[in-house]
């Protein structure tokens, strides 16, 4: 379009909009009409003149003969006149893959439950095509400190393995394998049915006793998965008029259990015991009749930190509230005799309810709920639906966990934990020494803070080919904007492997930052 009024003075001269005036100036520049350029510039608003200070608005006439300067001014004005991104094409697939989050798809539109998932699938496909989809990788062989995997495009890689939750490296332990073989021989692969019917064996009874001994709470119930234990404990105990106070970062099974149990849920600030006290006081000021369950993890699985459980348990007792602690990641892998965060804080036998999972140190599936109350045990078995209405853990699984529990309590367990922590310190020290940020406390989980999702996804893509298997966590596991690599260390990691991995990760991050041309670091605030 040719802007109107090239050479004419319009009636409402001082009302013309700046874009129109800049159009006139550019047209005049093409004609070499410096007089019109200068005259029109004088009409450009003070707003624009003060904003675009690199244009010599008062001296456009003097550009006559100064070709370089004229070219610069024309280029700058064109930049204001034409949207920049029309001149700056990008790979639409990659842009889509990197700029979105899973939460963008949480509430799909439409009445057809089958077809309305397709928008999300398009995004997953874009992530896959650009090799930024970190999920659904599969193992090609038994994982050890090194593992061979295939990503979901079928590409293979081999790398130092920080994806296994096998903190004491039991998966390759001869005693563990022998226990599995013996149970297989004695009982076969199937658990006959629900543990409420005939799903349990003598091994299950032994296991309950061993776990009770480990956490100091003698009444133990087994669940088919850790998730089922957390969900089952919460929905088994809490009713609609009751209250739940839950750490914002507690595990998904507990969050979802809370949502399913009651609408009276308060998500308190991570680790903040004072906030719990405040909420409890508020609730008890108006409700003296109903129950309150306070829910926290022991070792938090994405932040690698833990609460002051001594104070938390005391605060709960002061307000007639019940405390539930999830020790899935710390039990067996740390603390005196493998007693985890409970043992470290001198709380064995002192916490109201403890739940855990066998999927980490105990080298199996499954979970448990423990307390000092035989009544609570029977109640949770009846009303925690995931116990009653699931098949029991298989005999092989219970035998493996029982053997794991035995080793954990033995001198060999102490030696394995010592090796594990040598590798943990080697990894953390090397990462920190390279200027990276490890969150939390020394524990089998080493969260390496990245922050921006784009940076994390790009680094994840590079690491795949560079010999480190590290799981990138982003929303919904972490809040948006605080993605990280979760490195899970094993007793089988040699300190040199840990240091080598740190070096590779640092290189991948630096290259990703350069690739994205990003200046953001990972300091939290």
């Amino acid at each position: 379009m040719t802007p109107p009024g090239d050479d004419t003075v319009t009636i409402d001269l001082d009302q013309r909009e700046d874009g129109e005036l800049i159009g006139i100036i550019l047209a005049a520049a093409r004609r070499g009409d410096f007089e019109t350029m200068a005259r029109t510039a004088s009409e450009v608003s003070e707003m624009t003149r003060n904003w675009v200070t690199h244009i010599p608005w008062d001296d456009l006439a003097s550009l006559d003969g100064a070709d370089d300067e004229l070219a610069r001014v024309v280029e700058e004005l064109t930049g204001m006149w034409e949207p920049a991104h029309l001149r700056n094409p990008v790979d639409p697939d990659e842009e889509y893959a990197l700029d979105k989050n899973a939460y963008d798809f949480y509430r799909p539109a439409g009445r057809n439950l089958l077809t309305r998932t397709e928008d999300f699938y398009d995004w997953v496909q874009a992530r896959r095509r650009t090799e930024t989809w970190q999920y659904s990788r599969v193992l090609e062989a038994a994982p050890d400190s090194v593992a061979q995997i295939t990503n979901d495009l079928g590409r293979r890689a081999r790398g130092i393995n920080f994806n296994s939750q096998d903190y004491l490296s039991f998966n390759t332990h001869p005693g563990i394998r022998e226990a599995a073989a013996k149970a297989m021989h004695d009982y076969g692969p199937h658990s006959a049915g629900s543990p409420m019917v005939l799903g349990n064996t003598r091994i299950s009874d032994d296991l309950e006793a061993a776990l009770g001994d480990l956490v100091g709470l003698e009444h133990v119930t087994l669940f088919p998965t850790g998730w089922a234990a957390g969900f089952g404990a919460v929905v088994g105990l809490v009713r609609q008029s009751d209250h739940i106070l839950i750490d914002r970062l507690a595990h998904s099974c507990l969050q979802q259990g809370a949502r399913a149990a009651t609408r009276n849920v308060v998500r308190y600030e991570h680790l903040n015991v004072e906030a719990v006290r405040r909420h409890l006081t508020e609730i008890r000021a108006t409700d003296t009749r109903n129950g309150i369950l306070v829910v926290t993890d022991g070792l938090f699985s994405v932040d690698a930190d833990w609460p002051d459980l001594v104070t938390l348990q005391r605060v709960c007792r002061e307000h007639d509230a019940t405390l539930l602690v999830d020790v899935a990641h710390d039990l067996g892998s740390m603390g005196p005799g493998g007693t985890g965060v409970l043992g470290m804080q001198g709380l064995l036998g002192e916490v109201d309810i403890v739940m855990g999972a066998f999927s980490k140190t105990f080298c199996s599936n499954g979970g448990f709920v423990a307390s000092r109350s035989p009544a609570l045990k029977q109640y949770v078995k009846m009303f925690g639906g995931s116990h009653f209405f699931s098949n029991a853990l298989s005999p092989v699984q219970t035998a493996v966990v029982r053997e794991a529990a035995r080793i954990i309590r033995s001198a060999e367990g102490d030696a394995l934990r010592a090796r594990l922590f040598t590798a943990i310190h080697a990894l953390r020290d090397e990462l920190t020494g390279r200027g990276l940020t490890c969150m939390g406390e020394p524990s089998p989980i080493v969260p390496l803070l990245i922050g921006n999702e784009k940076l994390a996804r790009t680094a994840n893509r590079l690491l795949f080919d560079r010999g480190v298997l590290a799981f990138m966590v982003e929303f919904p596991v972490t809040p948006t904007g605080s993605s990280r690599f979760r490195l899970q260390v094993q007793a089988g990691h040699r300190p040199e492997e840990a240091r080598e991995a740190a070096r590779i990760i640092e290189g991948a991050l630096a290259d990703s930052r350069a690739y994205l041309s990003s200046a953001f670091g990972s300091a939290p605030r």
Partner: protein
Amino acid sequence: MYDAIVIGARCSGASTALLLARQGHRVLVVDRASFPSDVISTHFLWPHGMSYLNRWGLLGEVLAVTPAHTTVEVVNDGISLTGSVPVELLREYFRDLHGDDSGVVQSYASVRRRVLDQILIDAATGAGAEVRTGFTVRELIVEDGQVVGIRGRTADGEPVEERARIVIGADGRNSFVARTLALPKYDERPRCTFAYWSYWSGFDLGPAQLHRRGRLACAVVPTNFDQNMVLVWGPSEWSREFRADVPGNYQKALDFVSPELGEMVRAKGTREERIYGTLDQSAFLRPLHGPGWVLVGDAESAKDQCTAIGMTHAFRDAELVSAALDRWLRGDVSIDEAMTAYGDRRRSQNAAAYHDYVCTLAEMRPYRHDELQLFVALRGNQQETDRFIATHADVAPVSEFFQASNLFLLNDAAKESSADHAVFADFAETSRSYQQNMFA
């Protein structure tokens, strides 16, 4: 020899000069413009922006001539939310970023730059900073790779050379300092909005209203001189067509986004100035500092206008950089330590998440079904509505609102459903129609 020379005497520059001068340092601040004068700006101050003014003792002067409110109405495709930024979150913001939470106020205001910038300059002068307006910087003096001063021309055309221990670039997205040092741009997000606005008298709607429908948005905000700023914006892909008839399309956009506001402006409004516009709002970061120089405000991090956060961020930078420089100038820390402290705050995870939030919003894609349902779920949930507004304004971290367990809880606590809102009636068709450029 000055302790610091500040180039640019507006929100970030005059404030930085003011704070450094109050700390007892010798400061020269220069600006090409004469004052009072306007500059392209949405000139909105969120409550933390107002709180900075209060902390500096300047809020009373601003409020004497500027209307302020606490609640804001945000209407997305007909789904209305009203709320305010909670004091507790404001306190948390100041504690986290600056280590003290004094002077927090909950109100916001739209202050014309010809009003605000003059107040800041007067305050800087009063604090002992030397302010030279109408001063054009021609070059930076660089010795051994270190910026050590400036050469320029006074308003009378007199050539001048001045030296300082540090030169602070507070000269906006088109920063002379950045251009002269040939600084690269990082984290560029070229997609942005086009925005057109003017000043209208003849009506008073009270608190600010922000409306969004499809790919277009408008805001009506009371400002100085008994006028309202009426701003419309949309995706820059549509700017070429919009520009073909600016006054006509300005009204057309208003009528589309909010027929009520469109009618109000048409029937009762008198336009007091020409229509202003800007297309050049792509986001980027620049390096924060180098030998002898540091950047603040839009010069270090420019963003789209769509969350109207620029001036508030400029004030934030002024407090951060002056606190850091003060420790260095006193000899408590090295310049590297001081700049690292500033850089950590300005290039943090939260800053990255908010950068992404603004840039994604600035693409002006039609709201998706799930986003609109989130707005429905927020209705009647005042605490979370307020937290959403605080998140939008970069008071509360994006990560704390957009967290899975929070979104699940919001969903569960919803008091209304999509059945209560017209936009969901034929959503797929409506959504498709929003993709059409209505100015083509």
